[in-house]
């Protein structure tokens, strides 16, 4: 394995990404909205919605798994805010690594074609698998890093917002930890796999991003099912969904890598 060359590609892609306003600005704004602004607002639920009656909260708590409802404080006035930051909004956490893995991989793969720099890259001594590995590292590592930073910010903001009412830290819960450390990275890997696959056919970053954008849907489904109470995410369920995402990632990456051979890409050069 040509590690120096792989490091060079990763470094080049990261240098380019860090210098790109089109990537850096969304990298700051989207997590700021999803993982800072929303939990801050959720912490203010009692202030915004007024006091929640004990009867209303009882009906909500009845729908929760016993171990989850047991974790909430006994005060109905603060339970709504706790519920919002620990259950309703927490599933947003995997969205960030998924979104950034999609953006970065689309730029790293289809973007090379779009900018006309792909041929120069193919003309290097890098093996096909080394080239794809470098591209995956350059996309997945920053996406997961941004996801982890975002999750940490989320926990800090949520605790700051809710603690004055509860008098204790509400995050991280076991579900939150699994989402940040397992579901986010594995769903991000699945997103990468999808982009690798669509990059075979796409000639522009935009096209790849749009085709690959469907990978955000599973996360949206999780958020909606959680918010509506159809399925409440438990640690075992999150662990299993992470494994499923990992399997999907492996399958998509294997299929995409096979299709992204040098000669196939050579056939599609401009």
């Amino acid at each position, binding site marked *: 394995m040509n590690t120096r060359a792989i490091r060079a590609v990763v470094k080049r892609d990261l240098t380019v990404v860090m210098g790109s306003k089109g990537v850096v600005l969304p990298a700051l704004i989207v997590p700021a909205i999803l993982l800072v602004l929303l939990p801050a607002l959720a912490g203010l639920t009692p202030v915004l919605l007024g006091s929640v009656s004990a009867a209303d909260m009882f009906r909500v708590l009845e729908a929760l798994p016993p171990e989850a409802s047991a974790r909430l404080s006994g005060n109905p006035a603060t339970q709504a805010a706790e519920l919002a930051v620990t259950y309703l909004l927490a599933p947003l956490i995997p969205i960030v690594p998924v979104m950034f893995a999609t953006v970065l991989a689309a730029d790293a793969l289809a973007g090379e074609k779009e900018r006309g720099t792909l041929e*120069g890259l193919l*003309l290097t001594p890098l*093996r096909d698998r080394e080239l794809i590995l470098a591209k995956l590292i350059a996309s997945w590592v920053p996406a997961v890093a941004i996801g982890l930073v975002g999750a940490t910010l989320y926990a800090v903001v949520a605790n700051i917002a809710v603690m004055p009412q509860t008098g204790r830290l509400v995050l991280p819960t076991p579900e939150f930890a699994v989402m940040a450390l397992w579901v986010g990275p594995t769903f991000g890997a699945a997103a990468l796999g999808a982009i690798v696959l669509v990059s075979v056919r796409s000639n522009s970053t935009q096209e790849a991003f749009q085709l690959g954008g469907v990978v955000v849907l599973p996360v949206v489904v999780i958020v909606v099912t959680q918010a509506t109470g159809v399925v409440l995410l438990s640690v075992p369920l999150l662990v299993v969904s992470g494994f499923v995402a990992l399997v999907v990632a492996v399958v998509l990456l294997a299929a995409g890598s096979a299709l992204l051979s040098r000669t196939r890409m050579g056939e599609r050069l401009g």
Partner: protein
Amino acid sequence: MRAKPTTHERGHAPYPAASVCAGESYVDRPSAEAPVLALDHVSKSFGQVTALADLSLHVGAGEVVGLLGHNGAGKTTTVRLLAGLLAPESGTVRVAGGDPVDDGPGVRAHMGVLPAALVVDGRLTARQNLRFAADVFGVAQDGLDERIDAMLVDFDLGDRADERVAGFSSGMRQRLSLARVLLPDPHILLLDEPTSALDPVAARQVRRALASLAQERRRTIVLCTHDLAEAELLCDRVVVLEEGRIVADGRPVDLAAEHGSGGVQVEVALADVDRARQIVAELAPGDVDRDGNGRLRATGVGRDLLPVLVQRLAAAELTVYEIRRLDPSLEDVYLALHASRNVATGPAVTGTDAAVRA
């Protein structure tokens, strides 16, 4: 015959100094013994378009071979096959004995390819681009920074080294692309129109550098170009492609002797230009070019027609200052070949490279 480049000393040239070119011919050097690049009966199509049809071409070590041909003749496809970016449908491609697809990393490690597209990234600085190339090609770290600095200075990019390439002119990008290709000191160079975007001074520097690489370092060079003067100046051998087939292959002087009939230049008084042009046109099969100073140039006028031309001009009582025979050039050869193909087959179908690029 055009003048060869003069001595040009460089203090720290990362590629060989151009002074070796002084007073020497770029052609007539001994041909190589074993083929470094070998395409044997190679065919390649893109959909319904045939890019190469049963093409066989061998290039020896240290040879400089020019690939000439219209757009779509198969030049780019040939380069991509040699670089392992395409696999042939039939036939074999070998580079230094290896298969460029199966042994790609090993082959490309010793190969510098300048494609028609840019090899530099507009979002990086010039220095970052060279550093990237050095790392990917495994250039020794020892003294690398100094080498990159020297390369940038030598390609007149020293004062823009830390600026993003996106802000560079096309000529600057071309120079940087060449610097990137030459930095790893490859043994084989495949260059697709290396001087197309350069100003005359930069183009001359690049030609000198390439000549030096071939003569001093015995690098094998395949040069795709539309600049026939450049091919004549640099190449030991010229291969003319048309519709994926070789229609001529040989030393420029031999091809000129075989296919070119030379031309004539006539200078007359300005008042006599139109009449003189008419007389020349009666003998010349092709166009007669004229400038604003009473000079006419025509190709296809052989030595045997010169006395006839002199007689007719004299009979017309024109004021003639000069009648000069022009030696056949590669341009004559190329135009003659193209004309004969058109006569034989109708206009050449161009579009193979266009199809590849589509």
